[in-house]
């Protein structure tokens, strides 16, 4: 894997090979291993190592990128030439800024120290194939004991990323991640649990397997009830997978492109007053790099306060465009926040370290556990996870999808039985206006959206429109 020193040497060569006014190189280097099991046996088991350099050249407002995963001089020269060729044929973009200096990129509060302390763990990087197999053996034993069939993964990775530019910026970040996802299958039911962390000691594979198994057992012989509007209790993975579909819109470019559901809505009471959302790379339960695709320091940004969308995030050029746009007076604070993607790109920026915060929660809605939410529900549906979510309506933010792997009927404060899975068509605006209770936020992961720090939610009038056959 690449070290920062090696990357710096490669960058020096890249600069020598280029005739561009400015040069930037983004390095990524990773080792990733994943043990996959199904039918109570390991059936796939993989490991890969790869390093890539992505080179951007800039000629007076004209910029482009080329990448290679080979580091000999000929490959680097080829990538530099490709980037320059792509850049030079373009018309100048008046909004393209010079690459940031180290001083500009480091403006704002420094989250880096906290990020360094909480993102890399040798114990995670060192997990061997044999150790992953032993963990899987334990999860299979849980399945065997309950006469279930299990499928899932155990993965670990170490990754490094760095950005260098010809104006003196040089940043480097390394992190680890371990992940367990486990499904337990019974004859006509299933259960699921998934968790990841930079620190493997936070993962209890057996504990996750036990929960998934219990869900499979408890949801056996599912009943069918009619679709309609129900009070639902969404576990954290279900919450993150559905709310994740709105965060592409918390972007200055999305507003300027008029493709955001926040167009004409920033500053209005869009959600219930118990909804507070921040983007905070330094949060102790978050992961990821403390700098963005231009090397800018990621800032902590409060996106939603008491249900009012206060602002969106910005890359450097987007902030400048927004300040000069017709929307400038209607979108709250405008400044580069360190959320840009590598340039050039058409989507601009996005918040990707989301935290549903506990701050400012009204006293009338204190934190509740999922068990307390169940106990307070006369009739409702407990949802483990959501699946195959897609956007139906871009402005009303209606999304469709299915429940999966553990859907339960709640009656008179108790989980009564498993249910056949529902299809939903639900506006996220309506959903976040109907949140009756939330748990403490936790680090959650799913399959439809990136990891977030989110609570479980009890939501009234969740819109189930159809029922499937299982």
């Amino acid at each position: 894997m690449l070290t920062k020193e090696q990357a710096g040497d490669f960058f020096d060569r890249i600069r020598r090979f280029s005739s561009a006014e400015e040069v930037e190189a983004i390095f990524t280097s990773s080792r990733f291993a994943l043990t996959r099991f199904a039918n109570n046996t390991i059936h796939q088991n993989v490991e890969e190592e790869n390093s890539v350099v992505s080179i951007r050249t800039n000629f007076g407002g004209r910029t482009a990128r080329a990448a290679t995963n080979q580091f000999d001089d000929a490959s680097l020269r080829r990538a530099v030439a490709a980037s320059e060729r792509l850049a030079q044929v373009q018309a100048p973009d008046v909004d393209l800024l010079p690459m940031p200096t180290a001083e500009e990129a480091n403006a704002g509060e420094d989250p880096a120290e906290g990020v360094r302390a909480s993102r890399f763990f040798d114990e995670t990087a060192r997990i061997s194939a044999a150790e992953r197999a032993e963990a899987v053996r334990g999860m299979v034993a849980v399945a065997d004991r309950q006469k279930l069939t299990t499928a899932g993964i155990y993965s670990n990775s170490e990754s490094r990323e760095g950005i260098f530019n010809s104006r003196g910026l040089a940043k480097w970040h390394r992190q680890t991640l371990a992940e367990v996802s486990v499904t337990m299958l019974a004859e006509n039911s299933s259960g699921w649990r998934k968790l990841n962390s930079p620190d493997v000691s936070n993962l209890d594979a057996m504990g996750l397997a036990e929960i998934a198994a219990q869900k499979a057992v408890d949801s056996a012989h599912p009943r069918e009830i009619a679709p309609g509007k129900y009070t639902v209790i969404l576990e954290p993975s279900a919450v993150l997978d559905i709310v994740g579909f709105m965060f592409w819109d918390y972007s200055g470019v999305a507003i300027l492109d008029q493709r955001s559901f926040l167009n004409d809505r920033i500053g209005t009471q869009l959600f219930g007053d118990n909804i507070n959302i921040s983007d905070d790379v330094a949060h102790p339960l978050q992961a990821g790099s403390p700098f963005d695709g231009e090397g800018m320091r990621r800032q902590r940004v409060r996106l939603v306060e008491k249900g009012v969308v206060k602002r969106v995030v910005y890359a450097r050029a987007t902030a400048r465009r927004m300040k000069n746009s017709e929307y400038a007076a209607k979108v709250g604070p405008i400044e580069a926040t360190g959320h840009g993607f590598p340039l050039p790109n058409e989507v601009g920026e996005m918040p990707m370290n989301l935290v549903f915060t506990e701050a400012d929660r009204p006293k009338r809605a204190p934190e509740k556990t999922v068990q307390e939410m169940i106990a307070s529900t006369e009739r409702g549906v407990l949802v483990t996870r959501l699946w195959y979510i897609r956007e139906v309506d871009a402005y009303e933010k209606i999304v469709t999808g299915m429940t999966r792997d553990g859907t339960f009927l709640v009656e008179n404060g108790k989980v009564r039985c498993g249910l056949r899975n529902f299809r939903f068509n639900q506006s996220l605006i309506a959903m976040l206006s109907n949140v009756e209770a939330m748990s403490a936020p936790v680090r959650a992961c799913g399959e439809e959206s990136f990891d977030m720090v989110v609570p479980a939610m009890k939501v009234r009038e969740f819109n189930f429109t159809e029922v499937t056959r299982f």
Partner: protein
Amino acid sequence: MKAAAQIALNSSSGRGVTYADARAVAIRNRSLTTKNGLVGHASESESLGIGVRVIADGAWGFAASSDLSGASVEAVAARAVEIARASARVKREDVRLAPEPAAVAEWATPYKIDPFTTSVEQNLGLLMQVDAEMRAVGGVTLAETGMNFQREESWFLSSEGADIHQTKYSTGAGYTAYAFAGSEIQKRSYPNSFGGQWQNRGYEQIEEMKLVENARRVGEEAVALHRAPQCPEGTSTIILDGSQLGLQIHESVGHPIELDRVLGMEANFAGTSFLTLEKLGHLRYGSDLVNVVADARQQHGPGLGTFAYDDEGVAAQATPIITHGLFTGYLSSRETAHTIGAERSGGTLRAEGWNRLPMIRMTNVSILPGEHPLSLEQLIASTDDGIYMETNKSWSIDDKRYNFQFGCEIAWEIKKGKRVRMLKNPSYSGITTEFWNSMDAICSREEWVLWGTPNCGKGQPQQVVGTGHGASPARFRNIRVGTAYRGS
């Protein structure tokens, strides 16, 4: 590259494996987009590496690296064996591979124009022309275009003696016009949404797509949708255009026939399948008009699922999937063929690149056109009351592939054989087998297009590959429509 594969094979064979294969792969990519008259994204990339797959102690191991030095490749082979031995700690039975003759072959995608010989100026010039046409329409608030080329060269060697060198090209382009007004965002895409149309061809694909010629109409339709009434909710006859039917096939036929899903190997992520093994040869999947094949051969067309050999060295084949409505075939691999009593793999194992384990993927899963001449306009003319829907906007299906819901960008109400008015926000939903059994007409060969789906995701770690889906417009009776907006 081939030398690296040979080193990997030699290295693994000395470590007590019962099977090994090595794939050295070089991928080159060009990706261009524009947005509202400016270049959105301009990049090229190359990715080289080797993946080594072995069976040791009766279990699989796979390792991959971008470092192609001899020492690194030997280490990768050793790592694959070590991983296989770890896999064997949690196994129920040894992996069994269906026999396959060891092929020695060279093959390349037929093409007229190598897309990488075209200039970036030429590519961007075309996209800017399209962009200008869309934005010439008042009310278009965002115009996006894109063009992509990929060249993938691979060397596959196996311990059984296979030695296969393939070069595949894929080319795609498309665009979308958005119109934001009031409280609605509407959009129209051409020739298809979510990346346009892709095939395994050269730049001639782009030249034949009539990109500029359709751009203004697409912009006008995006704006006109704001004035159109909402698609009603209820039960209706629907006609789907070929691109939407291609996605319907992908989701409700292509995925459920993947044998690894059926056998539970994807249960934790992509899901399983309602097509349990006892249904083969017995299930009435669709009406008598429904004939679906999985065909990776060149004679089926230049689809994204076209090749000469799959990524475990099995020759491309055509498998009848649905024959006059009867379920007749799965997508299989050497490891899974025995579970359906097949003597040979169906040849569907593919990997995203050098760093991924090949797995069962759709090839070109296509519905065959109707045998009697029938154009789209004739089909509409023969429909008394219905809705014609075009171009996918959203898609969702459950993890066993029963219940689906699709939204389309645009629709037209049909009355007495004529399109009487445009409808916005059309959607339809149903249960897979009920839906396919309701098909009562399909257009003939002249309306048939081999559509490309470039973004099919599956597996852990997830792999995205392209699949092909030939389809012509078809009609379905008694379909639920408008449910996407029910209760909202």
